[in-house]
């Protein structure tokens, strides 16, 4: 019984054509791209598809993403010195933390009034109609940053979560291999520079999924932003740009919203025929 709301959500999204079809996303190329942005040696990164575990976990918590998310994987290092990063791609608005969904539900560019004691999400405008939301989660047990890139025109959400600290459990500091120093510096520095890279990672994923050029991040945030880390995206010339001439071929990506498939029309037609048939049958019975 408890899965009925999830199934109904999925059926509704099928009918509305909201399920995003992401097929053939070349994870290896994506890994290269992300490794480049985070200045980590790609040959030392592991990519793990955790779609199934994520679905199981979320079915348990009755989250619609259990069925809806199409690409969910983690990046880790072979040696364990890369703070794990989890990436998920899904259609717009389905797979959110409840609270974040509440905050982002309102009109484009305008956030709902936050509940007492809570601040607005850190929000950065992307080009097109996209926004990136930055949510830090911090405590003695560790900290992580969640970046959610939301692209209404593409009907897509890309979410990246990276663990930036393990709190008192931290076991990496003081034992950083020299070839990964740049990455660890990026993480340990935190703040705007890390946030900027994470947003670029999200854009890289969007680009790979849609086979379009990634939108660039605008310099000015659209919301008054608390003076915390990770709020304003600024240009960093040291970052290898996504627009730089990369000799690698584009990945073979077949990605399109199922809005373009005829299923909704077919289902709609079947429903119409059924309704019309029912009415005719009733009339004949009379």
């Amino acid at each position, binding site marked *: 019984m408890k899965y009925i709301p999830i199934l109904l959500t999925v059926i509704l999204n099928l009918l509305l054509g909201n399920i995003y079809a992401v097929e053939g996303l070349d994870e290896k190329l994506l890994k290269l791209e992300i490794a480049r942005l985070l200045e980590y040696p790609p040959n030392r990164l592991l990519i793990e598809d955790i779609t199934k575990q994520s679905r199981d976990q979320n079915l348990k918590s009755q989250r619609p993403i259990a069925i809806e998310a199409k690409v969910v994987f983690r990046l880790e290092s072979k040696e364990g010195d890369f703070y794990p990063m989890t990436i*998920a791609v899904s259609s717009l608005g389905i797979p959110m933390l409840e609270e974040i969904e509440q905050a982002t539900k309102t009109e484009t560019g305008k956030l709902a009034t936050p509940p007492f004691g809570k601040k607005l999400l850190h929000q950065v405008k992307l080009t097109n109609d996209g926004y990136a939301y930055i949510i830090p989660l*911090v405590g003695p047990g560790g900290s992580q940053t969640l970046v959610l890139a939301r692209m209404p025109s593409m009907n897509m959400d890309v979410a990246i979560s990276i663990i930036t600290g393990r709190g008192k*459990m931290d076991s990496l500091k003081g034992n950083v291999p020299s070839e990964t120093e740049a990455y660890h510096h990026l993480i340990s520095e935190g703040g705007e520079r890390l946030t900027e890279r994470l947003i670029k990672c999200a854009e890289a994923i969007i680009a790979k999924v849609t086979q379009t050029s990634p939108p660039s991040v605008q310099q000015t945030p659209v919301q008054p932003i608390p003076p915390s880390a990770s709020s304003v995206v600024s240009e960093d010339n040291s970052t290898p740009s996504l627009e730089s001439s990369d000799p690698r071929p584009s990945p073979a990506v077949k990605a399109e919203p199922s809005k373009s498939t005829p299923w909704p029309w077919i289902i709609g037609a079947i429903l119409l025929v059924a309704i019309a048939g029912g009415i005719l049958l009733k009339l004949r019975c009379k």
Partner: protein
Amino acid sequence: MLMASRTGVRAHLAIKVDSPEGLRDKIYVGAQKVGATTILGSVKVNAPNDKTKLEFDALPGHEIYEVVAGYDQNGNASLDNDEAQIIFKKTPAGSATSGLQYLDKIIIVTENQFGSSKDTVAGYNVWGTGYAGDLIEGFARGSGTITNATTSNNIDISANEPGLSHPVGGRWNPGCKDKTYRFTFADATPASNDFEGSNAFEQIVDKVARDNLAALVSAYDGSVEWAVSSPYTFDESKDFSVSDPDFLPFCISKLKNAFGKVDIKGTIRFSYKKTGPNTITVGSVEMIGHFEDLYDFAYSGGPEARQASMVQAGHATLAKAPEANAGKVFFKRLEFNSGWKNWNRTYTSP
């Protein structure tokens, strides 16, 4: 060593120096930035039992310092850059363990750094962060109340409290004691509900069932189909970052961030029936208990934890009204009473 200025950028250190009496008038201690040779301040050492007070101005930017010592060769009553011969080390060379690379160094938090870190850390309480966000803002602002938690005051704490990463976060009296508060998340609060739905909860139930399987089998007399066991006590250490990791960006474990590693204590009762010679099926379980931990930060725990640890360092000297408790370490407690919870698992011994 993490410490804060009393005001502005002026750092005050108290050092015990073991020095030969005949040469003591010429031996000086000073401070320098790690990786640099400029002596920022120096003073002649006192007798070993008399603390030597060293003052210097911290440099702009967040720098890490070390204490050096040397012989005043030119007799100018100060330690010159080329006179520093010894770098203070508490640990023998090469033995610093992972995560403790700052052990021998001095980290100074200035008044400005304290203020900016406090605002940054309070700003972590954004939508979506739930009680984890409430706790960290409460820590940064020194709030006496937290949403969904009750506050108990006048709880004893000491500078060497187990689990306290740095001996800062209290206004220690000469006995190194202070009073702090405890925030309790009672049963049925969001934090408590998170725990009752956690993997850690499941793991404890499974472990207690297996550990007591023989007793449960033996106690089953068949007088009723579903027997209710006596309460079994447990005391289990759980690291939520291991038991309840984040599977998705959408499934963030607030429990992990807010509580980290804890010792969970309580009792479990099983409603079960014997389904084989060495097998029981548990239909439902009831777990009642609590865990309590210190809310403090380690400087080496990541960029956000570092900011929070700087607020903690400044609590004693830099926190002022109306946020006089900013950076004060406190206890947080979570209580749970699951009621009878459907379980439907079978436990068997070989």
